[in-house]
Protein backbone atom coordinates (compact mmCIF):
# COMPACT_ATOMS: atom_id res chain seq x y z
CA UNK A 1 0.00 0.00 0.00
CA UNK A 2 1.44 3.41 -0.96
CA UNK A 3 2.28 6.01 1.65
CA UNK A 4 -0.60 8.54 1.56
CA UNK A 5 1.93 11.31 2.21
CA UNK A 6 3.75 10.63 -1.04
CA UNK A 7 0.77 9.65 -3.21
CA UNK A 8 0.21 12.08 -6.08
CA UNK A 9 -3.17 13.82 -6.00
CA UNK A 10 -5.34 13.13 -9.03
CA UNK A 11 -6.63 16.15 -11.00
CA UNK A 12 -10.22 15.03 -10.46
CA UNK A 13 -9.65 15.00 -6.70
CA UNK A 14 -8.32 18.54 -6.88
CA UNK A 15 -11.28 19.72 -8.98
CA UNK A 16 -13.76 18.13 -6.58
CA UNK A 17 -12.04 19.51 -3.50
CA UNK A 18 -11.76 23.06 -4.87
CA UNK A 19 -15.32 22.89 -6.17
CA UNK A 20 -16.54 21.79 -2.76
CA UNK A 21 -15.16 24.93 -1.09
CA UNK A 22 -15.17 27.26 -4.09
CA UNK A 23 -18.84 27.02 -5.05
CA UNK A 24 -20.22 28.05 -1.62
CA UNK A 25 -17.60 30.78 -1.40
CA UNK A 26 -18.48 32.17 -4.83
CA UNK A 27 -22.17 32.04 -3.90
CA UNK A 28 -21.42 34.05 -0.74
CA UNK A 29 -19.36 36.58 -2.70
CA UNK A 30 -22.14 36.96 -5.29
CA UNK A 31 -24.75 37.54 -2.57
CA UNK A 32 -22.51 40.11 -0.89
CA UNK A 33 -21.78 41.93 -4.13
CA UNK A 34 -25.50 42.05 -4.88
CA UNK A 35 -26.08 43.86 -1.59
CA UNK A 36 -22.98 46.05 -2.02
CA UNK A 37 -24.30 47.40 -5.34
CA UNK A 38 -26.91 49.35 -3.34
CA UNK A 39 -24.10 51.56 -2.02
CA UNK A 40 -23.65 53.00 -5.49
CA UNK A 41 -27.36 53.36 -6.40
Amino acid at each position, binding site marked *: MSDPRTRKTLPIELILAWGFVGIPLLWGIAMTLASAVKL*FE
Partner: protein
Amino acid sequence: MVPPAALCIHLCIGQAYAFSVFSLPMTMLLGIRHSVPGDWRLTDIGWIFTLGIFFLGVSAAILGRWVEEGGPRRAMFTAALCFAGGFLISAVGVYAHRIWVIYLGYGVLGGFGLGIGYISPVSTLIRWFPDRPGMATGMAIMGFGGGALIAAPLSVWLLKQFSTPTHVGVAETFICLGLIYFCFMLVGAFIVRVPAPGWQPAGWTPPATPAKLVTTADVHVYRAIKTPQFWLIWCVLCLNVTAGIGVLGQASPMSQEIFPGRVSATAAAGFVGLMSLFNMAGRFGWATFSDLIGRKNTYFCFFVLGAVLYALVPTTGAIGSVTAFVVCFLIIISMYGGGFSTIPAYLKDMFGTRYVGAIHGWLITAWSAAGVFGPVLVNYIRQYQIDHGVPKAQAYNLKMYIMAALLVVGFFCNLFVRPVHARHHLREQEPASSAPGAAPVPPAPTAAN
Protein backbone atom coordinates in the same frame (compact mmCIF):
# COMPACT_ATOMS: atom_id res chain seq x y z
CA MET B 1 -5.54 19.06 -1.22
CA VAL B 2 -4.46 20.85 1.92
CA PRO B 3 -5.66 24.38 1.01
CA PRO B 4 -9.23 23.12 0.29
CA ALA B 5 -9.08 21.06 3.51
CA ALA B 6 -8.09 24.17 5.46
CA LEU B 7 -10.82 26.16 3.71
CA CYS B 8 -13.40 23.53 4.70
CA ILE B 9 -12.63 24.31 8.33
CA HIS B 10 -12.18 28.07 8.11
CA LEU B 11 -15.22 28.70 5.91
CA CYS B 12 -17.30 26.98 8.61
CA ILE B 13 -15.86 28.56 11.73
CA GLY B 14 -15.91 31.96 9.99
CA GLN B 15 -19.66 31.76 10.63
CA ALA B 16 -18.87 33.41 13.96
CA TYR B 17 -18.63 36.80 12.22
CA ALA B 18 -22.22 36.39 11.04
CA PHE B 19 -23.71 35.44 14.40
CA SER B 20 -25.34 38.88 14.62
CA VAL B 21 -27.89 37.61 12.07
CA PHE B 22 -29.52 35.79 15.01
CA SER B 23 -29.44 38.72 17.40
CA LEU B 24 -32.82 40.22 16.55
CA PRO B 25 -34.72 36.91 16.09
CA MET B 26 -33.40 35.72 19.45
CA THR B 27 -34.88 38.76 21.19
CA MET B 28 -38.33 37.73 19.94
CA LEU B 29 -38.48 34.03 20.76
CA LEU B 30 -41.51 34.52 23.01
CA GLY B 31 -43.10 37.58 21.41
CA ILE B 32 -42.47 36.33 17.81
CA ARG B 33 -43.14 39.72 16.11
CA HIS B 34 -41.70 41.91 18.85
CA SER B 35 -39.96 41.50 22.20
CA VAL B 36 -42.14 40.89 25.25
CA PRO B 37 -41.23 40.71 28.96
CA GLY B 38 -39.26 37.49 29.44
CA ASP B 39 -37.58 37.72 26.04
CA TRP B 40 -33.80 38.01 26.03
CA ARG B 41 -32.20 41.44 25.60
CA LEU B 42 -29.62 42.27 22.94
CA THR B 43 -26.99 42.64 25.66
CA ASP B 44 -27.71 39.06 26.85
CA ILE B 45 -27.28 37.77 23.31
CA GLY B 46 -24.14 39.84 22.72
CA TRP B 47 -22.40 37.74 25.35
CA ILE B 48 -22.72 34.62 23.18
CA PHE B 49 -20.33 36.03 20.55
CA THR B 50 -18.05 37.54 23.19
CA LEU B 51 -17.75 34.18 24.97
CA GLY B 52 -17.12 32.43 21.67
CA ILE B 53 -14.21 34.75 20.81
CA PHE B 54 -12.88 34.55 24.36
CA PHE B 55 -12.82 30.74 24.32
CA LEU B 56 -11.36 30.81 20.81
CA GLY B 57 -8.30 32.49 22.31
CA VAL B 58 -8.25 30.31 25.43
CA SER B 59 -8.53 27.02 23.54
CA ALA B 60 -6.00 28.04 20.89
CA ALA B 61 -3.53 28.89 23.64
CA ILE B 62 -3.97 25.86 25.89
CA LEU B 63 -4.55 23.26 23.17
CA GLY B 64 -2.06 24.57 20.61
CA ARG B 65 0.59 22.03 21.54
CA TRP B 66 -1.96 19.20 21.57
CA VAL B 67 -3.03 20.24 18.06
CA GLU B 68 0.59 20.42 16.92
CA GLU B 69 1.55 17.02 18.27
CA GLY B 70 -1.62 15.16 17.31
CA GLY B 71 -1.72 16.37 13.72
CA PRO B 72 -4.32 18.29 11.74
CA ARG B 73 -6.80 15.45 11.17
CA ARG B 74 -7.46 14.80 14.85
CA ALA B 75 -7.67 18.54 15.51
CA MET B 76 -10.06 19.16 12.61
CA PHE B 77 -12.31 16.29 13.69
CA THR B 78 -12.36 17.61 17.27
CA ALA B 79 -13.10 21.11 15.99
CA ALA B 80 -16.00 19.73 13.95
CA LEU B 81 -17.42 17.95 17.00
CA CYS B 82 -17.09 21.03 19.20
CA PHE B 83 -18.37 23.58 16.68
CA ALA B 84 -21.33 21.49 15.51
CA GLY B 85 -22.00 20.34 19.08
CA GLY B 86 -22.13 23.98 20.12
CA PHE B 87 -24.92 24.61 17.61
CA LEU B 88 -26.89 21.54 18.70
CA ILE B 89 -26.65 22.42 22.40
CA SER B 90 -27.62 26.01 21.56
CA ALA B 91 -30.69 24.68 19.75
CA VAL B 92 -31.69 22.96 23.00
CA GLY B 93 -31.08 26.26 24.80
CA VAL B 94 -33.33 28.13 22.38
CA TYR B 95 -36.03 25.43 22.60
CA ALA B 96 -35.96 25.46 26.43
CA HIS B 97 -35.40 29.25 26.48
CA ARG B 98 -32.36 28.98 28.73
CA ILE B 99 -29.67 31.50 27.75
CA TRP B 100 -26.99 29.84 29.90
CA VAL B 101 -27.31 26.68 27.81
CA ILE B 102 -26.46 28.78 24.74
CA TYR B 103 -23.53 30.36 26.58
CA LEU B 104 -22.25 26.86 27.28
CA GLY B 105 -23.08 25.57 23.79
CA TYR B 106 -22.05 28.20 21.25
CA GLY B 107 -19.96 30.26 23.68
CA VAL B 108 -17.80 27.66 25.42
CA LEU B 109 -17.99 24.45 23.34
CA GLY B 110 -18.34 26.32 20.05
CA GLY B 111 -15.52 28.64 21.13
CA PHE B 112 -13.27 25.61 21.61
CA GLY B 113 -14.25 24.48 18.11
CA LEU B 114 -13.32 27.92 16.79
CA GLY B 115 -9.92 27.92 18.50
CA ILE B 116 -8.92 24.37 17.59
CA GLY B 117 -10.23 24.76 14.05
CA TYR B 118 -8.50 28.10 13.53
CA ILE B 119 -5.00 26.83 14.28
CA SER B 120 -5.39 23.24 13.04
CA PRO B 121 -4.23 23.69 9.41
CA VAL B 122 -1.61 26.42 9.96
CA SER B 123 1.59 24.44 10.48
CA THR B 124 0.56 21.78 7.94
CA LEU B 125 0.12 24.47 5.28
CA ILE B 126 3.48 26.01 6.12
CA ARG B 127 5.15 22.59 5.74
CA TRP B 128 3.49 22.01 2.36
CA PHE B 129 4.45 25.49 1.10
CA PRO B 130 7.87 26.30 2.58
CA ASP B 131 8.52 28.57 -0.42
CA ARG B 132 5.33 30.61 0.04
CA PRO B 133 4.17 30.33 3.67
CA GLY B 134 2.35 33.67 3.58
CA MET B 135 0.24 32.70 0.60
CA ALA B 136 -0.54 29.29 2.13
CA THR B 137 -1.77 30.58 5.48
CA GLY B 138 -3.42 33.55 3.79
CA MET B 139 -5.53 31.17 1.75
CA ALA B 140 -6.81 29.36 4.85
CA ILE B 141 -7.36 32.42 6.98
CA MET B 142 -9.10 34.07 4.03
CA GLY B 143 -11.71 31.36 4.60
CA PHE B 144 -12.39 32.67 8.08
CA GLY B 145 -13.22 36.06 6.57
CA GLY B 146 -15.27 34.44 3.80
CA GLY B 147 -17.26 32.25 6.18
CA ALA B 148 -19.53 35.13 7.12
CA LEU B 149 -20.30 35.80 3.45
CA ILE B 150 -21.81 32.31 3.23
CA ALA B 151 -23.25 32.07 6.73
CA ALA B 152 -25.20 35.34 6.68
CA PRO B 153 -27.39 34.66 3.61
CA LEU B 154 -27.63 30.95 4.46
CA SER B 155 -28.84 31.69 8.00
CA VAL B 156 -31.35 34.27 6.77
CA TRP B 157 -32.68 31.77 4.22
CA LEU B 158 -32.96 28.98 6.82
CA LEU B 159 -34.73 31.29 9.30
CA LYS B 160 -37.23 32.16 6.57
CA GLN B 161 -37.88 28.47 5.87
CA PHE B 162 -38.49 27.56 9.51
CA SER B 163 -40.35 30.63 10.72
CA THR B 164 -44.12 30.50 11.05
CA PRO B 165 -46.61 33.02 12.47
CA THR B 166 -46.17 31.35 15.88
CA HIS B 167 -42.49 30.38 15.72
CA VAL B 168 -39.22 32.16 14.94
CA GLY B 169 -37.31 29.07 13.75
CA VAL B 170 -33.97 29.76 15.43
CA ALA B 171 -33.64 26.30 17.04
CA GLU B 172 -34.24 24.49 13.74
CA THR B 173 -31.78 26.79 11.97
CA PHE B 174 -29.15 26.00 14.61
CA ILE B 175 -29.70 22.25 14.12
CA CYS B 176 -29.39 22.57 10.33
CA LEU B 177 -26.26 24.72 10.57
CA GLY B 178 -24.71 22.31 13.09
CA LEU B 179 -25.28 19.33 10.79
CA ILE B 180 -24.16 21.16 7.62
CA TYR B 181 -20.98 22.46 9.27
CA PHE B 182 -20.22 19.05 10.80
CA CYS B 183 -20.33 17.35 7.39
CA PHE B 184 -18.34 20.15 5.73
CA MET B 185 -15.64 20.09 8.39
CA LEU B 186 -15.45 16.29 8.28
CA VAL B 187 -14.58 16.51 4.59
CA GLY B 188 -11.71 18.83 5.54
CA ALA B 189 -10.51 16.38 8.19
CA PHE B 190 -10.76 13.53 5.69
CA ILE B 191 -8.78 15.12 2.85
CA VAL B 192 -6.04 16.84 4.86
CA ARG B 193 -2.59 15.29 4.54
CA VAL B 194 0.74 16.01 6.17
CA PRO B 195 3.85 16.01 3.98
CA ALA B 196 6.52 13.34 4.33
CA PRO B 197 9.47 14.42 6.48
CA GLY B 198 11.88 16.57 4.46
CA TRP B 199 9.36 17.14 1.67
CA GLN B 200 10.10 20.10 -0.60
CA PRO B 201 8.26 21.50 -3.63
CA ALA B 202 9.69 20.31 -6.94
CA GLY B 203 12.43 22.59 -8.20
CA TRP B 204 12.67 24.56 -4.96
CA THR B 205 15.74 24.66 -2.79
CA PRO B 206 15.92 26.60 0.45
CA PRO B 207 17.99 29.78 0.08
CA ALA B 208 21.61 29.22 1.09
CA THR B 209 21.59 32.38 3.18
CA PRO B 210 18.17 32.97 4.69
CA ALA B 211 16.93 36.51 5.15
CA LYS B 212 17.97 38.22 8.37
CA LEU B 213 14.60 37.71 10.04
CA VAL B 214 13.99 34.16 8.78
CA THR B 215 15.31 31.38 10.97
CA THR B 216 16.10 27.83 9.89
CA ALA B 217 15.98 26.60 13.50
CA ASP B 218 13.00 25.79 15.70
CA VAL B 219 12.00 27.23 19.06
CA HIS B 220 9.87 25.26 21.54
CA VAL B 221 6.49 26.82 22.20
CA TYR B 222 7.14 27.35 25.92
CA ARG B 223 10.47 29.02 25.18
CA ALA B 224 8.96 31.12 22.42
CA ILE B 225 6.40 32.71 24.73
CA LYS B 226 9.22 33.80 27.04
CA THR B 227 11.02 35.76 24.32
CA PRO B 228 10.52 39.52 23.81
CA GLN B 229 9.94 38.81 20.11
CA PHE B 230 6.76 36.87 20.93
CA TRP B 231 5.34 39.70 23.02
CA LEU B 232 6.31 42.35 20.49
CA ILE B 233 4.47 40.39 17.79
CA TRP B 234 1.59 39.91 20.27
CA CYS B 235 1.37 43.72 20.56
CA VAL B 236 1.66 44.11 16.78
CA LEU B 237 -1.35 41.83 16.26
CA CYS B 238 -3.32 43.25 19.18
CA LEU B 239 -2.90 46.86 18.03
CA ASN B 240 -3.62 46.07 14.38
CA VAL B 241 -6.78 44.16 15.35
CA THR B 242 -7.89 46.78 17.90
CA ALA B 243 -7.72 49.48 15.25
CA GLY B 244 -9.72 47.41 12.76
CA ILE B 245 -12.27 45.74 15.02
CA GLY B 246 -13.24 49.07 16.54
CA VAL B 247 -14.67 50.32 13.27
CA LEU B 248 -15.74 47.01 11.75
CA GLY B 249 -18.72 46.70 14.07
CA GLN B 250 -19.74 50.33 13.61
CA ALA B 251 -19.33 50.73 9.87
CA SER B 252 -23.05 50.97 9.20
CA PRO B 253 -24.04 53.66 11.77
CA MET B 254 -20.76 55.51 11.24
CA SER B 255 -21.26 55.94 7.48
CA GLN B 256 -24.84 57.12 8.03
CA GLU B 257 -23.94 59.58 10.79
CA ILE B 258 -20.92 61.09 9.03
CA PHE B 259 -22.93 61.58 5.82
CA PRO B 260 -26.49 62.20 7.07
CA GLY B 261 -29.06 62.04 4.27
CA ARG B 262 -26.50 60.85 1.73
CA VAL B 263 -25.89 57.28 2.94
CA SER B 264 -29.13 55.36 3.54
CA ALA B 265 -29.46 52.26 5.74
CA THR B 266 -29.55 50.10 2.59
CA ALA B 267 -26.42 51.74 1.18
CA ALA B 268 -24.72 51.32 4.56
CA ALA B 269 -25.53 47.59 4.46
CA GLY B 270 -23.84 47.51 1.05
CA PHE B 271 -20.83 49.24 2.57
CA VAL B 272 -20.65 46.58 5.29
CA GLY B 273 -20.80 43.88 2.60
CA LEU B 274 -17.95 45.52 0.69
CA MET B 275 -15.92 45.69 3.88
CA SER B 276 -16.43 41.94 4.41
CA LEU B 277 -15.17 41.30 0.88
CA PHE B 278 -12.08 43.44 1.39
CA ASN B 279 -11.49 41.84 4.77
CA MET B 280 -11.42 38.47 3.02
CA ALA B 281 -9.40 39.62 0.00
CA GLY B 282 -6.87 41.38 2.25
CA ARG B 283 -6.23 38.13 4.08
CA PHE B 284 -5.05 36.46 0.92
CA GLY B 285 -3.55 39.46 -0.87
CA TRP B 286 -1.45 40.93 1.92
CA ALA B 287 -0.19 37.54 3.15
CA THR B 288 0.85 36.63 -0.39
CA PHE B 289 2.52 40.04 -0.80
CA SER B 290 4.43 39.37 2.46
CA ASP B 291 6.24 36.48 0.72
CA LEU B 292 7.74 39.10 -1.59
CA ILE B 293 8.58 41.96 0.77
CA GLY B 294 8.92 40.13 4.11
CA ARG B 295 6.63 40.05 7.15
CA LYS B 296 8.16 42.96 9.00
CA ASN B 297 7.86 45.25 5.99
CA THR B 298 4.25 44.13 5.47
CA TYR B 299 3.37 45.22 9.01
CA PHE B 300 5.21 48.49 8.42
CA CYS B 301 2.84 49.00 5.47
CA PHE B 302 -0.16 48.30 7.72
CA PHE B 303 0.95 50.71 10.41
CA VAL B 304 2.12 53.58 8.18
CA LEU B 305 -0.65 53.38 5.60
CA GLY B 306 -3.27 52.61 8.27
CA ALA B 307 -2.30 55.59 10.42
CA VAL B 308 -2.36 57.94 7.43
CA LEU B 309 -5.76 56.66 6.28
CA TYR B 310 -7.30 56.88 9.76
CA ALA B 311 -6.01 60.44 10.06
CA LEU B 312 -7.59 61.25 6.66
CA VAL B 313 -11.07 59.93 7.52
CA PRO B 314 -12.21 63.12 9.37
CA THR B 315 -11.16 65.12 6.29
CA THR B 316 -13.26 62.93 4.00
CA GLY B 317 -16.23 63.69 6.25
CA ALA B 318 -15.43 67.42 6.29
CA ILE B 319 -15.24 67.66 2.48
CA GLY B 320 -18.27 65.39 2.10
CA SER B 321 -16.58 62.78 -0.09
CA VAL B 322 -18.33 59.44 0.36
CA THR B 323 -16.04 57.84 -2.21
CA ALA B 324 -12.87 58.88 -0.37
CA PHE B 325 -14.41 57.69 2.91
CA VAL B 326 -15.31 54.28 1.44
CA VAL B 327 -11.88 53.87 -0.19
CA CYS B 328 -10.10 54.70 3.09
CA PHE B 329 -12.07 52.11 5.03
CA LEU B 330 -11.81 49.40 2.39
CA ILE B 331 -8.01 49.68 2.45
CA ILE B 332 -8.00 49.81 6.26
CA ILE B 333 -10.16 46.71 6.55
CA SER B 334 -8.03 44.83 4.02
CA MET B 335 -5.05 45.47 6.29
CA TYR B 336 -7.05 44.33 9.32
CA GLY B 337 -7.60 41.00 7.55
CA GLY B 338 -4.03 40.94 6.31
CA GLY B 339 -2.81 41.30 9.88
CA PHE B 340 -4.43 37.99 10.83
CA SER B 341 -3.18 36.05 7.86
CA THR B 342 0.41 37.32 7.83
CA ILE B 343 0.99 36.52 11.50
CA PRO B 344 1.49 32.72 11.15
CA ALA B 345 4.22 33.27 8.53
CA TYR B 346 5.81 35.94 10.74
CA LEU B 347 5.89 33.41 13.61
CA LYS B 348 7.34 30.77 11.31
CA ASP B 349 10.08 33.20 10.27
CA MET B 350 10.92 33.98 13.89
CA PHE B 351 10.44 30.63 15.65
CA GLY B 352 10.64 27.98 12.92
CA THR B 353 8.04 25.53 11.62
CA ARG B 354 7.98 22.83 14.28
CA TYR B 355 5.82 24.57 16.90
CA VAL B 356 4.38 27.36 14.79
CA GLY B 357 0.80 26.13 15.28
CA ALA B 358 1.13 26.05 19.06
CA ILE B 359 2.87 29.44 19.17
CA HIS B 360 0.16 30.82 16.90
CA GLY B 361 -2.38 29.47 19.38
CA TRP B 362 -0.84 31.51 22.18
CA LEU B 363 -0.70 34.57 19.98
CA ILE B 364 -4.42 34.35 19.29
CA THR B 365 -4.96 35.66 22.84
CA ALA B 366 -4.00 39.04 21.34
CA TRP B 367 -7.16 38.79 19.24
CA SER B 368 -9.27 38.00 22.30
CA ALA B 369 -7.79 41.01 24.11
CA ALA B 370 -8.39 43.25 21.09
CA GLY B 371 -11.92 41.86 20.77
CA VAL B 372 -12.71 43.26 24.19
CA PHE B 373 -10.51 46.38 24.09
CA GLY B 374 -11.39 47.64 20.59
CA PRO B 375 -15.18 47.89 20.78
CA VAL B 376 -15.08 49.18 24.38
CA LEU B 377 -12.63 51.92 23.38
CA VAL B 378 -14.64 52.92 20.33
CA ASN B 379 -18.04 52.91 22.03
CA TYR B 380 -16.82 54.74 25.11
CA ILE B 381 -15.09 57.52 23.16
CA ARG B 382 -18.09 58.07 20.90
CA GLN B 383 -20.55 58.18 23.79
CA TYR B 384 -18.29 60.50 25.79
CA GLN B 385 -18.12 62.95 22.91
CA ILE B 386 -21.86 62.89 22.24
CA ASP B 387 -22.54 63.41 25.97
CA HIS B 388 -20.31 66.48 25.80
CA GLY B 389 -22.23 68.07 22.94
CA VAL B 390 -20.14 67.00 19.94
CA PRO B 391 -22.39 66.59 16.83
CA LYS B 392 -22.85 62.96 15.76
CA ALA B 393 -21.18 63.61 12.40
CA GLN B 394 -17.99 64.68 14.18
CA ALA B 395 -18.14 62.26 17.11
CA TYR B 396 -15.91 59.82 15.22
CA ASN B 397 -13.04 62.23 14.58
CA LEU B 398 -11.23 61.78 17.90
CA LYS B 399 -11.66 58.03 17.57
CA MET B 400 -9.98 58.04 14.18
CA TYR B 401 -6.99 59.95 15.55
CA ILE B 402 -6.74 57.52 18.49
CA MET B 403 -6.80 54.57 16.09
CA ALA B 404 -4.02 56.26 14.09
CA ALA B 405 -2.04 56.70 17.33
CA LEU B 406 -2.50 53.00 18.19
CA LEU B 407 -1.06 52.10 14.81
CA VAL B 408 1.94 54.36 15.45
CA VAL B 409 2.57 52.41 18.69
CA GLY B 410 2.27 49.21 16.66
CA PHE B 411 4.85 50.57 14.21
CA PHE B 412 7.40 50.88 17.01
CA CYS B 413 6.60 47.40 18.40
CA ASN B 414 7.25 46.00 14.92
CA LEU B 415 10.41 48.08 14.60
CA PHE B 416 11.89 46.48 17.74
CA VAL B 417 11.41 42.89 16.48
CA ARG B 418 14.85 41.28 16.11
CA PRO B 419 15.90 37.69 15.30
CA VAL B 420 15.45 35.23 18.19
CA HIS B 421 18.70 34.53 20.01
CA ALA B 422 20.26 31.15 19.18
CA ARG B 423 20.14 30.05 22.83
CA HIS B 424 16.39 29.56 22.41
CA HIS B 425 16.75 27.20 19.44
CA LEU B 426 15.98 23.48 19.75
CA ARG B 427 18.82 21.06 19.16
CA GLU B 428 18.30 18.45 16.46
CA GLN B 429 18.22 15.55 18.94
CA GLU B 430 16.01 17.31 21.47
CA PRO B 431 12.69 15.44 21.85
CA ALA B 432 9.62 17.20 20.49
CA SER B 433 7.88 16.86 23.84
CA SER B 434 10.70 18.42 25.82
CA ALA B 435 9.20 19.64 29.02
CA PRO B 436 8.80 23.33 29.59
CA GLY B 437 11.18 24.64 32.15
CA ALA B 438 13.81 22.05 31.29
CA ALA B 439 17.42 23.05 31.60
CA PRO B 440 18.52 25.43 28.84
CA VAL B 441 19.89 23.61 25.83
CA PRO B 442 23.02 24.96 24.23
CA PRO B 443 22.50 26.07 20.65
CA ALA B 444 23.26 23.77 17.77
CA PRO B 445 26.27 25.01 15.84
CA THR B 446 24.29 25.49 12.64
CA ALA B 447 21.24 27.00 14.24
CA ALA B 448 22.38 30.58 14.62
CA ASN B 449 20.80 33.04 12.25
